[in-house]
């Protein structure tokens, strides 16, 4: 079971079984709905922005252990961050998933446990789904603000 333990670290299974930051936000500043073309999994992501920071973030939708744990870890890691900081966080996570950056534990928090996923290309999409949704969500938010919407 070596390979299994490698991929499914306890921390991942823990986040999968006890998801943090699950649900929707009433009156969110921005929301996106994305899906994984490989398996059809969906992710709803809401953020509430206050003073240029992510005051609240929630992810919803069903999916595999990796995608659920990644969403759970994302809500913890992004909570309270400035938008640019959050984008840097997402980019760092993306690079780690593509094996192009050594993980920064301080930045990532529990999400560092997902490092082993990089070895499973199909599962990388699962891990990235909610994280890239945050990137799109922030872009949407900024566009809405810019156009005075």
């Amino acid at each position, binding site marked *: *079971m070596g390979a*299994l333990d490698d991929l499914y670290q306890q921390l991942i299974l823990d986040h999968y079984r006890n998801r943090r930051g699950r649900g929707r936000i009433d009156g969110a500043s921005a929301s996106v709905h994305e899906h994984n073309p490989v*398996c059809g999994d969906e992710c709803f992501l809401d953020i509430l922005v206050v003073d240029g920071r992510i005051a609240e973030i929630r992810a919803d939708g*069903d999916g595999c*252990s*990796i995608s659920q744990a990644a969403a759970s870890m994302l809500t913890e890691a992004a909570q309270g961050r400035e938008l640019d900081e959050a984008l840097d966080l997402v980019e760092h996570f993306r690079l780690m998933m593509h094996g192009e950056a050594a993980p920064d534990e301080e930045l990532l928090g529990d999400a560092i446990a997902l490092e082993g996923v990089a070895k499973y290309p199909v599962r990388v999409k699962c891990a990235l789904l909610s994280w890239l949704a945050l990137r799109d969500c922030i872009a949407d938010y900024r566009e809405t603000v810019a156009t005075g919407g």
Partner: protein
Amino acid sequence: MGNSAQHTLDAQALRAEFPILTSPRADARELHYLDSAATSQKPRRVLDAMDAYYRETNANVHRGVYEMAAEATARFEAGRDAVARLVNHPREATVFTKNATEAINLVAWAWGARELGEGDEVLVTLMEHHSNIVPWQIVAGITGATVRFCPVTPGGDLDLDAMRDMIGPRTRMVAVVHVSNTLGTINPVEEIVAMAHAAGALTMVDATQSVPHMPVDAAAIGSDFLAFTGHKMCGPTGIGVLAAAPERLEAMEPFLGGGEMISDVTTEGSSWNEIPWKFEAGTPPIAEAVGLGAAVEFLEQVGMENIRAHEMEVARQMLDALDEVPGLTVHGPGDIGRRGASVSFTLDGVHPHDIGQFLDTRGVCVRAGHHCTKPLMRHIGVQSTARASAYLYTTEDDILALRDALVACRDWFGAA
């Protein structure tokens, strides 16, 4: 469980012909390959036939005066003879494409893009593979025609009454899968073809999941078009087949233009070669046709009836084994007489991706996802399923490994 006296095929003995199933693996895990609906494994003789082609007589076909080129042409065309024979179809109406998907697109573009118009309808079903949906959607988008979907019953069958109602004077094409790659359902294609023809519509049968697994008689089915693919029937990647009614091919304008498919080319315009070559532009999949010919000979030797009998047995074993796994739901018919040996299932509390991943650590390869049947997935209300699919080399041992791995998987993910 099994009682192999019921059929004459010895899967364990046949495995010896498949190098991938017999060679020791780097990770020392035994290989329980249960993903043959995605692609089949290849017997040694198919690999050897292609290798021999390249080593002995590789040359471009149809035009070379020298002997090696004539020999290449002979081996290539012998591949066509074998395929035509397997499905009981005239060789000149047996067109090589790159895969089943291209075969369907050929018809959608060469026939549909020219013949369809505003108000015309193409009837497909909710259990079609994307390859028998999207080409029609694209061509409908260009021509103004409409694509309609025949529903599927809760038991996983086509709703033939609904189909009868939906086929009408506007129906120009009825495109239907012979055996569903997701549900395993075997559809009564002869009946459907007769229904469509009675209404004046043409018919496309996607036989991708039937030709590898059971006797398929194109003449008996009587469809205008029948498509299948090499890599799922012990053959190589890079080759597919369109078996069409000769008179349709004669009447149709060509699809891809280029070398091979012409009779004459002038600056004013061109004229076309005879069928089947009129529809084979450019250098064809030569080595692939040679490999597919060897695959057909292998299948004929094993016997398509025997393969079907074996897979019925395996399907029964599989359904019984899955029944032993708590919290598991099978999607698709339970009657093995009406289904193939592709079985989709979901497991309460464990996502199909996690099933696939976990099973892999025990050497059990199954597919997880939407199996290129998203409209069907929405219809049955799941985002994805796990799918175990068998072939002539599948043994009871594979099925037991599947069952044990699923039980362990449930425990590992702590499903209730």
